[in-house]
Structures are given as C-alpha cells and as structure tokens.
C-alpha cells in the first residue's frame, strides 16, 4: 500500500491495518496488474457532495489509474448522465435520479458477485430496513430502485437480486439548519420554517425532487395536508402543497431559494436566512467560519437521501475492470472514513471505522462527546473537544428517517407545479 505517505502517520497506519483487517477479503489492493492500467482514466460525473479531489488523488495512489471528476448540480448530473452517457464512465448520482436515468439505458447493472463487501453494506440498501423491524420510509428509497432482475430490464426489481443499479457510497439524514444566535427561540418542528416570525428570513431548496419532500414535511407538520404517501403524491396532494408554498412565497416568507451547496452556505453565513433546508456539510462549512449554525433534529423525523456509483453502459474491457476495482476500493475504508468525517455516512461501516480514530468514530457515528478536537479532512478544527453531534448517533439519525428524496408517478405534474411556484 502506498497510503503510508498520507500526512498523519497514525491515520496511515490505521488505514493499513484497516485494509487488511476490514474483511476476510483483502481490499484496497489493486488486483489488476495489467501494464497499461496507468493509462486508464475513469471519467466521473457527480455533485459537489462527493466529487472531491482528495478521493481522486487517493484512487491514483491506491489503484494507479486516473479518476477525472466533473462536478455539477443534482439535476444537471442526472440530465448529463442520461443524455451524454458516452462522455462519462462513472455516474455518481442520487437514488431518486437513478429512477429516471436507469430506464434510459445509460447505466449498466453492477454484478454484485464482483463486489467483495456486498454483504457488509448497511441493510438500508440491501433489505430496505436499517434494522429488521425499522420502517421503510416513504419515497424513492435506495432499496426500491437499487436492484434489477436482468441486464436488459428497464424496471426495478424491488427486492435483492445479483444486479445493482448503483453501488451505494454515501447517504445522510437531512433536516433544517438554523442560526441559533439569530433565531431567538427553540426550533422543534418542520412547521417552524413557515413561522411568520421568520418572514423574509427562511429559505427552501429549489431542486424539485428534494424541495417537494421538505415542503411536504412542513405541510404535514403544520396540519395543512395529510399524505397517503409523501413520496408518491396524488395530483390533489401536489396541488395542496404547491398552493400552500405559493401562498407563503407571496406573503414574503422566503428570502431566496437555493440550488447549490455553496449558495446555502452563503445564505446562512451572511445572515440573509436564519432557517432553511440544508445539507449536513453545509452546516459544517458555516460553523468552520466561526458562525453558530445548528443542524436541528425535528420531532417529525428526517428526510434522507443516498447516492451511489453507476457504471455507464458503454464501459467494457480493461476499463470495466478498473471500474469494478474502483467500486471495491470505495467500500474498502479510506473513502468511507473520508466521507464520515464530513458528516455523511458510508455504505460499509466497519471498514470506515478501521480508518477512523476512536474519537472520530465516537463523535460522528456514536453521538458521543468528542474527547479531543474534531478535525476536518483538511486538518481544520471543526468542533472543539466536548462537542456532541446534532441529532446524535448513526442509529438515532438514520433510525428516524421518515421519507426519501423522490421521483413520483406524477413527476411531470409535480415538476410543472414546482416551476409555477418558483415563477409565482
């Protein structure tokens, strides 16, 4: 392993240990010894969430080939994966996007027999439930679109098969972010987003598949609407939700709508907004500027999302081998630890654990107070010793997921109405 070159030797040593201890299979090692492996380049399109240069650098170090990253916003990634499939080899996309993209034939199924740690993946992805008795969560759950019956199937299996649409890599439970210093009262429910006290200081994200779910959480919490299935609304339910949003917009409740991670950070950090839909690392980014920001757990539970790596249909031969090599590497620990340290969750927990210090694992995954300063992957202090993660442990957070980002049967209608809300 060439990982011993990483800046912190303790981590390097742990990674080395993790790579050999992580599982029965020895993972992380390149098993491709072809001479021309160095010439292989995998072109990946994804969002800024996981399209991170340190990952590409580590791939080069560990596996020897190049990972070339293109980063765009959620909708654009799905669009380009579907329409310009040949320009990329790997699609790093969300499960609700794959529901749209997979049937276009842009992505080939992943043969799970070639994935060494397939049985170590968190059961949310393989059985649909975190623990055998936890609920499924409404919406486009990763499990519902995670498997197909055959290589030519255009619809999803809805049960575990040997063919996966995406290899899960990263997921999280989302809630509202607040500025505790400016908001002036405790926040407990999703409906607090539309409290008139925060008029002109609230924001919701403008990605229809995600925004509609936040809106549904708000409407349900405020008693405006009740849904049969939030993740698959009827036209009447969509109308009710969007009409309510338009009403709120006209009343001046929202300061702005954001579409990219950076926009949400700027809105919050500048104080333009005090309560808004937010993603976990965006909260961390605001905090790392020395500005108080809380990822507020709410009584109704979380809205979750997950994304994974898909292999484009045209990838074959040596490149396909490299792609599988890359997928296996992703689960082997380094990447998992890297993502966990930013507040996301990795698909295989034990290999990630082996790559994290006890303090890091305790803080990020177990909800324990930090015993020493928590550093970001770049080495910046994110949290002082004694801090506790908002929302607590992995089980507490992922166990309270009530819905997933969604593509509905009435998607076309929903998107049209959502556009009307934005234009209203």
């Amino acid at each position, binding site marked *: 392993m060439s990982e011993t070159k990483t800046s912190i030797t303790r981590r390097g040593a742990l990674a080395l240990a993790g790579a050999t201890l992580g599982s029965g299979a020895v993972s992380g090692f390149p098993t491709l010894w072809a001479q021309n492996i160095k010439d292989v380049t995998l072109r990946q399109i994804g969002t800024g969430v996981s399209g991170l240069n340190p990952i590409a650098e580590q791939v080069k170090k560990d596996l020897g080939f190049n990972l070339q990253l293109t980063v765009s*916003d959620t*909708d*654009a990634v*799905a*669009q380009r994966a*579907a*329409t310009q499939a040949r320009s990329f080899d790997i699609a790093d996309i969300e499960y609700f996007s794959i529901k*749209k993209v997979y*049937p*276009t034939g842009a992505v080939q199924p992943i043969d799970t027999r070639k994935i060494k740690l397939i049985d170590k993946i968190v059961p949310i992805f393989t059985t649909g439930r975190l623990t055998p008795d936890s609920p499924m969560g409404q919406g486009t759950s990763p499990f519902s679109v995670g498997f197909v019956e055959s290589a030519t199937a255009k619809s999803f299996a809805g049960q575990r098969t040997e063919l996966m649409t995406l290899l899960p890599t990263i997921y999280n439970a989302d809630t509202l972010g607040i500025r505790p210093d400016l908001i002036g009262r405790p926040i407990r429910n999703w409906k607090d987003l539309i409290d008139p006290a925060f008029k*002109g200081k609230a*924001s919701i994200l*403008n990605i*229809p598949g995600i925004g509609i779910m936040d809106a549904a959480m708000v409407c349900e919490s405020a008693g405006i609407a009740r849904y049969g299935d939030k993740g698959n609304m009827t036209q009447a339910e969509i109308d009710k939700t969007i009409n309510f949003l338009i009403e709120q*917009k006209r009343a001046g409740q*929202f*300061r*702005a*709508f*954001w*579409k990219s991670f950076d926009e949400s950070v*700027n*809105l919050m950090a*500048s*104080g*333009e907004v005090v309560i808004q839909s937010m993603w976990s690392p965006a909260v961390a980014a605001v905090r790392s500027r020395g500005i108080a920001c809380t990822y507020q757990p709410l009584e109704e539970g979380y809205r979750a999302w997950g994304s994974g790596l898909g292999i484009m249909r045209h990838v074959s031969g040596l490149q396909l081998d490299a792609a599988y090599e890359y997928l296996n590497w992703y689960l082997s620990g380094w990447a998992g630890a890297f993502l966990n340290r930013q507040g996301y969750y990795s698909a295989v927990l034990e290999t990630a654990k082996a790559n994290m210090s006890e303090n890091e694992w305790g803080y990020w995954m177990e909800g324990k107070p930090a015993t020493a300063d928590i550093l970001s992957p770049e080495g910046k202090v994110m949290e002082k010793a004694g801090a506790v993660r908002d929302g607590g442990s992995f089980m507490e957070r992922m166990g309270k997921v009530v819905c997933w980002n969604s*593509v509905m049967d009435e*998607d*076309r209608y929903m*998107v*049209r109405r959502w*556009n*009307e809300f*934005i*234009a*209203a």
Partner: protein
Amino acid sequence: MPRLFPWLQTAPLLAVLLVFLLIPLAMLVIVSFYDYDSFSLIPDFVLTNYKEVFASSVTWRTYLKTLWFAGLTWLVTLGLGFWLAYFLAFVVQSPTWRMVLFVLTTVPFWTSNLIRMIAWVPFLGRNGILNNGLLAMGAINQPLEFLLFSDFAVILAFVHLYTLFMVVPVFNTMMRIDRRLLEAARDAGAGFWQALWCVILPLCKPGIGIGSIFVVVLVMGDFATVRLMSGGQSASVGLMISNQIGLMQYPAAAANAVVLLAMVLLLVSAMLRAIDIRKEL
C-alpha cells in the same frame, strides 16, 4: 458555369448556417411537438406542450415579467448609454483621453459575467456594505431588504452587465457625426436641446437601434442573472426553460423556446422597422 459561381461562393456559409442553425432550429420545432415522460422522449405530434405554455397563468406572468425586465433594462441602459456616449464623443476633446475613458467603460468586462453578478451579493446584502454604511450614517434604522434578492437587484445587475452594449454602438455613430453639422445648427440659432433633438438624436438612431437589439435580446434570453440576483424569487422565460431542461422535460422546454424565439424575432423586426440600422454599416 459562370451562373453557378455565386452559388458556389455562398455554399460554405450556406452549409454552416444549414448545419448549425437551420437544422437545430427545425429539430427544436419538431421536439416541441413530442410527448415525454420522466424517462424519455416519445416521438409524437401532440399540442400538450403548447397548451401548457398558453393555458397556465404562471407562464403568461413569466412572459410578461421577462418583457418587463427587458423594457426597464432597455430604458435605463439607453438613458445611461446615451449620455455616457455623448460625454465621450462631444465633451471630451482630447482623442487620447477619449480612448482612455472608452477603455475604462469596458473594465467590468474584464471579469466573467458570473463574478460580476456575485460581486453584488456582499455589497447589497442584509449585512452588506451598503446597508452597514447607511446604518452607520444613521440614514436608515432597518437594513433595506429590497436591495438583494429582488427585482431591483435583477435590473441593477442587468444594467451593470449590458450598458456597454448600448454605449459602444451609440458612441460609434456619434463619432461619425460631421461636427460642421453641429456648427451649422448653432449658427442657425439652435440651442443645446434643439441641436440634440434635431441633429444628434436622428443621426444616432442606427447606433441606438443596434444597442437596443443587443440589450433586449440578451435580457430576453437570460436565466443566470435572474436566478442569482433574485435568489430564485423571480422567474424569466430563460430560467423556466433552463429548469425544464434540468428536469429532462425537453419537449416542454422546446415549446417555450419556440414561443420565446417568435417573440424575440417579432421584437427585433419591430425595431428594424423603426430604425434603419444599415445606415450604420
């Protein structure tokens, strides 16, 4: 054979226009009649896309809003652009200074469009420089909210981005005005305003026409400025199209694009009727 020569000479241009303009346009029109679901385009001939454009009150409002943005931006850039050009052409006497000042007007173009827009955010924000300055001076007690993420911000950014497109052609026509005409006007007893109205303005018409076409066409097709400066609160047709493309609703986007194209062509042809820009060329 000689009769074929002109055809051969125009063939390259014709081929380029055919491949890169006419065929894509034809495809745009064809796709606008397609049906679609969330996964794919369905070749068909349906009018739903156009029905959705015209039946929704929101699309109408969006089109009106876009026109309103274009109109207001045009008025402001015309006013600003005309007087800037006038200053450069008639007030500044030294050709060196004229050149220096002219280059200065292009300074905003030395950075990208996006950066020029984003630069407004820390200036206009609730806790931005302007609000903090006004609060410190005691001119206001509450930060002015309308400065950012509002129509005001959108128009401001448009004016900032596009005034130069008005200044350059107007300046160009002004420089071509024979100075003796102005002397003659003065000798004939015309005052400042009369000379401006009866001599300079008519001779500047082609420049104003070209500038207006630039500004109106740019604003009508814009989506980034409207989204960033209004914080997603306002919509323009371009933004609506970009949203639809992002969500893979290509036929709906194509139908909107066809309608927008028709509208812009009508506007431009109206301007060309009012002003003969060929005098400029």
